[in-house]
């Protein structure tokens, strides 16, 4: 399982001091864990920097510019500031829970990184064969941290924020978990590395089979991370800062890190499931096939980071484009639109795969190549699967509009049965003409 072919010079150096088992099962995992923690923390820190920069660019501003060239050291300065700030505890707070909650949030967000395949070979820490379940299970522990933080703060704003965010996260987790299933049907495994290799060996990204799955997964992911436009738990205008209103200093920064780490987790999982993970066409042929093994791993790692970075940019982009939802709209979107869409996606994908399997023998067509790594489809099978995926968009859209035919809550215009039309000739400025009699 831990088949490491790590950089050989460090390996041989370590083998002089430790036995082979120790090196393979203890030392290397620790090195990998350390690297991943450091890289993820750096990624999280610079995600805040990127967020500030991108938001500034979208508003014709410059963003942080003072600390270091182009403000590149700003995250470090922020971290130092937060470390030295007072750690304030409210008078009647439940002290133990108040202390523990931020750690739960951070651990829940960071521990998922253990199973994310960043690259092909030594860039995987562990390949758990129920990786997807592990990700979903562990990342939903984050809700507990929010509830504990909101409850223990002894503040109405924190409690309301925690209530909102827990309700939101629980309801969006359902559609998030269901959205994945479509991709899993093609991957035929729950291991994240297995899902990537299923895509790599068939030279396709699952987003082509599952466009609607990616959309549902991303929307639910954004909602589960309590990010705009679903940032009701931290709605500044109503709730001060939501569940972490009473937190300050380092504990607050832990929540902040947890939020960004959860974002990174969702982007990483979405990349793995739908965008092919570290797989990119032609990389294998030009590196691994010619014997450059470590170059292959490093390039795959960069590919993975680039894909996840693109999705992260989508997060920022949506945040600075869309206004916040109302709470009832949020619940509507979750339960009336995303959940049925995920269910329809599962049904249509299952039917599609059955059709592909049925076409394999009797019609004389060859649709399935192999079942060794995922659902290996031939060209015909791939075309059919992509066609079903695209058709699924329209099927889902039609069925959703059928389901929500009478639902008027989501649309304010439909709630109003009648409107007062202002009858003005077209092409004229919208000014009511003043007659000379009424003017005097």
């Amino acid at each position, binding site marked *: 399982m831990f088949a490491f072919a790590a950089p050989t010079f460090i390996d041989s150096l370590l083998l002089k001091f430790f036995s082979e088992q120790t090196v393979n099962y203890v030392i290397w995992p620790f090195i990998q864990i350390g690297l991943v923690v450091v890289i993820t923390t750096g990624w999280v820190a610079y995600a805040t920097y990127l967020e500030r920069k*991108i938001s*500034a*660019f*979208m*508003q*014709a*501003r*410059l963003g942080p*510019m003072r600390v270091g060239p182009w403000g590149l050291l700003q995250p470090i300065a922020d971290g130092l500031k937060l470390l030295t700030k007072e750690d304030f505890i409210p008078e009647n707070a439940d002290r133990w829970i108040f202390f523990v909650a931020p750690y739960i949030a951070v651990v829940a967000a960071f521990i998922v990184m253990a199973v994310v395949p960043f690259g092909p070979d030594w860039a995987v820490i562990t390949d758990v064969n129920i990786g997807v379940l592990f990700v979903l299970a562990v990342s939903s522990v984050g809700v507990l941290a929010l509830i504990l933080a909101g409850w223990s703060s002894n503040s109405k704003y924190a409690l309301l924020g925690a209530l909102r965010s827990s309700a939101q996260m629980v309801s969006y987790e359902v559609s998030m978990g269901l959205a994945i299933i479509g991709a899993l049907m093609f991957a035929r495994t729950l291991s994240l590395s297995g899902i990537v290799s299923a895509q790599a060996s068939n030279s396709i990204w699952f987003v082509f089979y599952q466009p609607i799955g990616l959309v549902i997964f991303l929307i639910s992911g954004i909602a589960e991370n309590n990010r705009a436009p679903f940032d009701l738990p931290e709605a500044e205008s109503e709730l001060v800062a939501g569940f972490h209103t009473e937190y300050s200093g380092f504990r607050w920064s832990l929540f902040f890190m947890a939020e960004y780490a959860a974002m990174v987790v969702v982007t990483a999982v979405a990349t793995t499931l739908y965008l092919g993970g570290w797989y990119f066409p032609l990389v294998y042929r030009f590196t691994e096939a010619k014997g450059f093994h470590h170059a292959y791993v490093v390039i795959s790692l960069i590919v993975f980071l680039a894909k996840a970075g693109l999705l992260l940019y989508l997060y920022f*982009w*949506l945040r*600075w*484009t*869309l206004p916040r939802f109302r709470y009832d709209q949020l619940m509507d979107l979750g339960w009336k639109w995303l959940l049925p869409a995920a269910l329809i996606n599962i049904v249509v994908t299952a039917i599609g795969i059955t059709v592909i399997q049925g076409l394999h023998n009797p019609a004389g067509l060859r649709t399935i190549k192999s079942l060794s790594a995922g659902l290996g489809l031939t060209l015909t099978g791939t075309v059919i699967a992509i066609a079903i995926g695209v058709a699924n968009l329209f099927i889902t*859209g039609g069925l959703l509009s059928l389901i929500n035919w009478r639902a008027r809550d989501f649309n304010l*215009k*439909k709630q*109003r*049965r*009648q*409107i*007062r*039309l*202002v*009858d003005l000739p077209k092409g004229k400025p919208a000014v009511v003409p003043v007659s000379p009699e009424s003017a005097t």
Partner: protein
Amino acid sequence: MPLVPVPKPTFSQKLKRFFMVDLLKGMAVTLGFNVGALTDKDGVAGKGIYTEQYPKVRPDVAPRFHGAPRLNMDPETHETLCIACNLCALACPEDCIDVIPMDVEVVVAGKARRKKVLDEFIFDTSRCMFCALCQEACPTYCLELTQDFELATYSRAGFVWNREMLEQGRETVKYES
């Protein structure tokens, strides 16, 4: 105007709603600004960045902007151009200028004469409204309102500029860009 039922969306409107055209339009706007900020540096003309990096990059003030006062000197002899005529003090609507002259004995064409020369010049910038009427009144182009705008000090007394400050200018921290 009468109340009428909400008009039914036309087919093209439904199509637009299905493909979320308005959402994509909004995202195109923000993306346009983001790309513009990275490529187009001139914020006034296009979608670039408007921000001025103030202490590092000084803003361009308008040509008719009036700021800190200055007493000009003869560029060759470095003597003041002020002839202590008091016209600026008379022109000042805020009464914030005090010209304090002194008499000196000079010999003009072999005869001993007395002459008024400038001893001290007090300019209260806290009361000044930068109308530049003093600059208009000055017959020798000595008093001038420059384009410096950093006039803040830590005390009220700091607003009162004496002759030395008016001739040398105030020291402000300069940042390299």
